[in-house]
């Protein structure tokens, strides 16, 4: 071999190591900075302020200077959004994997388009839908928890459909055909054989979508989240949420204490998303392993 390629080889290897170490360093700095600044504020007061935790948890007393309302807001938002999105996404995914033949396959294009639409545009859609309904049908409807949850559901729908479809399509033909061969109906095959078999792929998709709901800020900014609302009282009221609180603090914090709360909130949100994400990876990894051993 001539020398020139070896030199190029070495340069490429050096560059790759440089990139890899660089990325790891960036990651370490981001996480390290957050933990260093936010760790000390992770105390019960961060969440409950001056209110006794038990009173707050029983919703007997309002929390004014803690994250409690924002956490409850995010929790109800995520639950509501997933309640809307999961049945819809599973049903659509089942259709795409099990029923869809011929030209109906083109529906996939629209899911891809929806997956690409920026979250702020989905938020804008939620807002304009609210304005439309407010003007023509329900005068009492304003941007609120329900609208946000609906818009978030639209945001994660394409991921849920795709992960369900992929999980179902990965099932080997032999498994797919054995129940019908024994006389099971198509629906029995889907619910008793195919869905249980693809549970891990589907649940990892659901976990990822949940994380996406919990972290998204752009959608809820346009559809009803506010800086201070207390515990959400109804589906049609405004609410607080963790990601918006973090954004709000970064743009206008009034005191050191508030800034410290912002760091605490960022650590909590990071932790929640990391947990969901790791759970999704573990579940999916198990799935992959099962397939390799077959």
């Amino acid at each position, binding site marked *: 071999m001539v020398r020139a390629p070896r030199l190029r080889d070495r340069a490429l290897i050096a560059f790759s190591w440089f990139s890899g170490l660089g990325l790891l360093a960036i990651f370490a700095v981001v996480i390290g900075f957050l933990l260093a600044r936010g760790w000390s504020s992770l105390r019960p007061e961060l969440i409950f302020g001056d209110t006794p935790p038990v009173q707050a948890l029983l919703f007997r007393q309002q929390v004014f200077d803690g994250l409690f309302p924002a956490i409850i807001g995010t929790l109800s938002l995520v639950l509501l959004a997933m309640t809307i999105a999961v049945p819809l996404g599973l049903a659509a995914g089942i259709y795409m994997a099990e029923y869809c033949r011929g030209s109906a396959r083109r529906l996939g294009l629209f899911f891809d388009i929806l997956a690409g*639409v920026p979250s702020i545009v989905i938020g804008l859609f939620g807002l304009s839908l609210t304005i439309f309904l407010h003007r023509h049908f329900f005068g009492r409807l304003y941007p609120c928890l329900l609208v946000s949850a609906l818009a978030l559901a639209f945001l994660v729908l394409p991921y849920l*459909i795709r992960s369900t479809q992929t999980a179902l399509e990965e099932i080997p033909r032999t498994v797919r055909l054995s129940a019908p061969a024994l006389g099971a109906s198509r629906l029995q095959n889907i619910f008793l054989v195919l869905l249980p078999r693809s549970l891990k792929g589907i649940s990892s998709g659901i976990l990822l979508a949940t994380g996406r709901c919990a972290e998204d800020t752009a959608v809820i900014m346009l559809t009803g989240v506010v800086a201070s609302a207390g515990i959400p009282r109804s589906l049609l009221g405004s609410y607080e949420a963790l990601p918006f609180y973090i954004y709000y603090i970064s743009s206008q914090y009034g005191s050191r204490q508030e800034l410290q709360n912002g760091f605490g909130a960022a650590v909590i949100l990071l932790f929640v998303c990391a947990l969901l994400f790791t759970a999704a990876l573990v579940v999916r990894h198990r799935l992959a392993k099962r397939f390799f051993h077959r």
Partner: protein
Amino acid sequence: MKPAPAAEKLFFGAALFSASISLFILLFMVVLGLPLFKDGFFLRLFTDPWRPDHGLYGISAMIAGTLGVSFLALVLALPLSLGCAILISIIRPPVFGRLLEKTVQFMTGIPTVVLGFVGVFLLVPFIREQFGHGSGRCLLTAALVLAVLIAPTMILFFCDSFSRIPASWLRAADALGCTPMEKFRHVILPNSLQGLAGGTILAMGRAVGDTMIALMLAGNAVAAPHALLDPARTLTAHIALVVAADFDSLEFKIIFACGLLLYAITLAMTLLIRGLDRGNGGRTW
């Protein structure tokens, strides 16, 4: 087999409804932005400056902001991602490679707003002190953080397209006495160009569509940025900032033009990726 048709209808209904959402979004943007399409007003969106108090509602500065921030982020992230992908899937150092791969996977899960938050309190003061002028919120700051946001997606996409090269080709290269890097340059790279292009377009779409990073870090001044340290406002940040205005004002209607433009850009990218994919003979995501 009796209940099947009803169930099939139900499943089909769910699929049809989900698919129709992407059309409804487009419809709402067009209908609510309709007043903008009259009397040549639409063209003036691209030529006028943004001065609502003077009745001028041009969004060209925001378009420049979006393009500037996302291109710069892409330029920063592309070499980094390529290097990391080579390290993970070609060089494969036993421990470090696995560690890097896990880290990259984990990084895709970091909330955007948290990344922006770190940017505000870590990178903004740093840029301000390093360059000694302005607030530190500028094109460069936003692009740096945005690069960190899109790099993991690109790396995973690149690794995936590297792993699609048939094993027999790689063994043939081995048999010819190629070093791993020669194998990469002569066999893997030329045959995964479509995947690389797809990953890059996907990342570009993420960069264009992201709101929080630009909103928190780019400074949001309404003027087209001319230098790295100039503040900029993106289309997405503009929507977030104007939305507080009165619903009936023209100012408010403009954001539907921004929404429409963003929709069109991301639609074009989605179609491009699908086109590349078809050429590739398989679905990659």
